């Protein structure tokens, strides 16, 4: 059985803030011409620390909830895990195929049909065209969209798009699934079905990392949690303990 694993060691992520002036070529050129002190001032970038020396490790079977108030660094952490942001400091090692589910509409072509979009999304997640075609029936079944799959996606409701996205993402059988927020917006019946699929999926040897504000989803789906605050890990461990701290944090501020 494939064992997935994620190890973060002292990972730091910083965003350079280029206020309009700094980002323009003029300022860069001018600063290199003026030299000396002014140049140093101009290149003295303002940085926002999105992740501050985060060390975590996740093992096979972990269903991790990322919690924390807005701007705590949940999304940045997910993007580092997905290999999208390269850490500025520290090291991250990810073993296993990753599927990042961050945005519903991502790469969806509103004019193309549901079937075409299934293939397109599959390709974006790293499947080959052959693998996409092999899975298309299974994916179509799961979405329960039936004839709608032959219609352009622009006719779909938000919930239908989520079904499509979720079905594709879980069908690529990744070892690691990363999810941000949005799953909470689909209807209760689908949510239940998604949860069952997710459970089966997690049992097939995988890691789930989910960022969410929904207490209900978090407690239902996850067995571990990480509480982020101002880019750092405030607490990590079993879900009950961490959620307790999270509640304290919310009520103290």
């Amino acid at each position, binding site marked *: 059985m494939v064992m997935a694993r994620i190890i973060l060691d002292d990972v730091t992520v910083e965003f350079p803030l280029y206020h309009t002036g700094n980002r323009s070529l003029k300022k860069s050129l001018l600063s290199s011409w003026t030299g000396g002190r002014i140049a140093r001032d101009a290149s003295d970038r303002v940085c926002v620390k999105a992740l501050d020396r985060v060390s975590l490790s996740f093992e096979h079977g972990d269903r991790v909830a990322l919690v924390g108030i807005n701007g705590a660094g949940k999304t940045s952490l997910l993007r580092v895990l997905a290999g999208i942001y*390269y850490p500025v400091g520290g090291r991250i090692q990810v073993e296993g195929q990753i599927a990042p589910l961050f945005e519903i509409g991502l790469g969806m072509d509103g004019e193309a049909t549901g079937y075409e979009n299934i293939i397109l999304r599959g390709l974006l997640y790293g499947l080959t065209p052959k693998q996409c075609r092999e899975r298309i029936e299974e994916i179509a079944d799961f979405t329960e969209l039936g004839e709608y799959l032959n219609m352009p996606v622009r006719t779909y409701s938000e919930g239908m798009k989520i079904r499509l996205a979720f079905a594709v993402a879980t069908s690529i059988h990744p070892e690691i699934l990363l999810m941000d927020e949005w799953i909470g917006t689909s209807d209760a019946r689908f949510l239940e079905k998604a949860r069952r699929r997710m459970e089966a999926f997690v049992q097939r040897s995988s890691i789930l990392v989910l960022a969410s504000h929904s207490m209900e989803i978090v407690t239902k789906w996850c067995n571990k949690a990480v509480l982020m605050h101002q880019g750092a890990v405030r607490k990590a461990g079993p879900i009950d303990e961490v959620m307790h701290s999270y509640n304290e944090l919310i009520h103290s501020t």
Partner: protein
Amino acid sequence: MTDALSASPVPVQVADAAQAGSLSVAVSDLTEGVRRWYVWHRMGWQDIRLRYRRSMLGPFWLSISMGIMMIALGVLYSSLFKINIHDYMPFLAAGLVVWGLISTTLIEGCSVFIDSEGLIRNVSLPLSTYVYRILWRNLVVFAHNLVVYFGTALWFGIWPGMTGLLSVIGLLLFIINATWAVLLMGILSARFRDIPPVISSLIQVLFFFTPVIWKPELAADRASLIHFNPFAHMVEVMRAPLLGNLPGVENWLTVVIMAVVGWYVTLRLYMRLRHRISYWV
């Protein structure tokens, strides 16, 4: 589990801040993008279909607007310059088609990463995928425009013969050069947002300074205008074979040197900045 993906060895990804910016990482980004050709192939087609969605002629509108532009310019300038239209029309057609490829590739290349922001921040495809997507899309447009050239050539009874095959080499040299140019422009533009407008106005000016609507012979006493214009050489390498002529040694040499120098500079830059791009867009 019998799954094809799971049967393969577990992919291990390591991102270590201390090892950022090695050449091998940059090169493997470029080759991995080529290996997954089906991604940009599909995205490129999707771009074109999206542009002409629900129009009856679809991408052939490209050919039609190119044709209209060519006829209008051809009639106007052949009488202004007092040149034989039989001679001028095919020259103009080949030039416009080739120039169209070069200029739009470069202009669109500037926003290659800026426009792919949504994808870059949400899936981890090799960044070169987006570069190849722009190239592919423009080559498809070029193929549609080429129809106009062949139509003109037939009308005026020109047949490039075997020399015409050399244009394939010209096209290859263009692709090699355009890849680094798009990558370079994309990196610089993601960081400095003033670059795209600078490039697009520069290219507008270059259109008039490059022998596309005027024949090189016209500038015989201002030869430096052509010698020191890399675009003139790039155009000539692709256009001359289409008209049944051989490009000069100087043309070939300039284009090859451009490729070597361009790739050297771009690779060094890409090596250092590749992992910063997702922060910039």
